[in-house]
Structure formats: C-alpha cells, structure tokens
C-alpha cells in the first residue's frame, strides 16, 4: 500500500524567511512524488514532481523539493516566503509497483505567511 503523511496541519512563517512543508511517504516500490497547492475555493495546482534523477527538484513559483530515499521524505521548500504563498499544500505519491493510476494524497498543510 502507498501513503503519504504531512505531519503539520499548519506552518506559520514570516515573509522573507525560508519555508519548509514536510512530507514523508510509504511505498513498496519506487515512488513518483508530487506537490500541489490549493488557493481558497479553487482546484489544486501542480507545483512539482519527482520521478527519477536529481534529488532536488525545482518547480513553479520558486518552490523546490528534496527527495530523500533513506528518510522517505519529500519536503517542499522555498528560500524566501511571500504573503501570496499562503495556501493549502498537498503532497501525493504513486507507487511504481502499483499498476493503478491514482495518487494518494496527504491531508494537507496550511501555510500562513505573515507580513
């Protein structure tokens, strides 16, 4: 079975400071990992993904994530937070040993960036 955990319901950070939103995963094979962002009353927007290759993945809006196989983590990071980054963030995983096409999503982390 595949699953992800987002251990923090909410993350607060001051504008200009670095931010990290945590994600750990559990799969039986090699994972595909994704980060999505959701603004209020909107659908999810794709930020970045890890399939293979470099462990540091760069995505939209200055976000990046680091794949760490030994710690089974895929934390989302940004060097300098903006107030407009305030939103709900979801980590998702697909297990390559699973022939299904669906993703398993975490419960989401609410990011609040204060001026």
């Amino acid at each position, binding site marked *: 079975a595949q699953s992800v955990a987002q251990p923090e319901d909410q993350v607060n950070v001051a504008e200009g400071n670095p931010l990290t939103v945590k994600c750990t995963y559990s799969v039986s094979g090699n994972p595909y990992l994704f980060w999505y962002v959701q603004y209020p*009353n909107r659908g*999810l927007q794709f930020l970045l993904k890890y*399939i293979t290759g470099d462990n540091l993945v760069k995505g939209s809006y200055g976000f990046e994530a680091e794949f760490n196989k030994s710690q089974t983590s895929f934390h989302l990071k940004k060097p300098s937070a903006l107030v407009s980054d305030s939103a709900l963030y*979801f980590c998702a995983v697909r297990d390559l040993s699973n022939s*299904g*096409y*669906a993703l398993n*999503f975490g419960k*989401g982390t609410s990011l609040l960036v204060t001026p």
Partner: protein
Amino acid sequence: DVKVTQSSRYLVKRTGEKVFLECVQDMDHENMFWYRQDPGLGLRLIYFSYDVKMKEKGDIPEGYSVSREKKERFSLILESASTNQTSMYLCASSYPRGHEQFFGPGTRLTVL
C-alpha cells in the same frame, strides 16, 4: 492551455435527489478521476477511469457511480444524495504512467 472544467461551482440538493456532476477535459487525457475533499481528511479517491467505458473503484465508492461514454467527459452520479455527501468534489485528468494530474475548479455540493 490545459483545462479541466466542472459543470457547477456550487450546487444545493435535497436528500434523496439524484445528482450529476460533470467534468470535461480538453487535453486528450486517458485517465480521469473523481475525488472528494473534506477538512482534515485531504483528498479521497472515489472512482477513476483509464479509458472510455472503463472504471475502477477508489477508496470511497459507496453511494456513488460514474460514467465515461466519451474520452473527454467523466460524470459522477450520486444515486440518492445524503447529507454526509456534502463536500467539495474535485475532478482531475492525466496521461498514464506517472504524469501529474490536472484539476478542475471543484464543485461544492451541499445536501440538505
């Protein structure tokens, strides 16, 4: 530009009504998905389809059915709506084999 559209942004129905939620994508994607999103529970997969007329149950299919008669359209059906089906419903589509999913804006359904 990639686009997934859902037939309604907000919908209010009464208990026992049959409800249809429609989703259309213009990207020629093989896969389409229906999720429901509830606070504290994240996204939960209801059904998905990997081809026309093909469907697979997700984690919470009870009380729902789906229809995919054309590649671009995936419908979610609540046969007899109940109050515990009040939720945000999100449709998504993707190419197969690990590509990212593209989401519609969501339908916020309230069942009274």
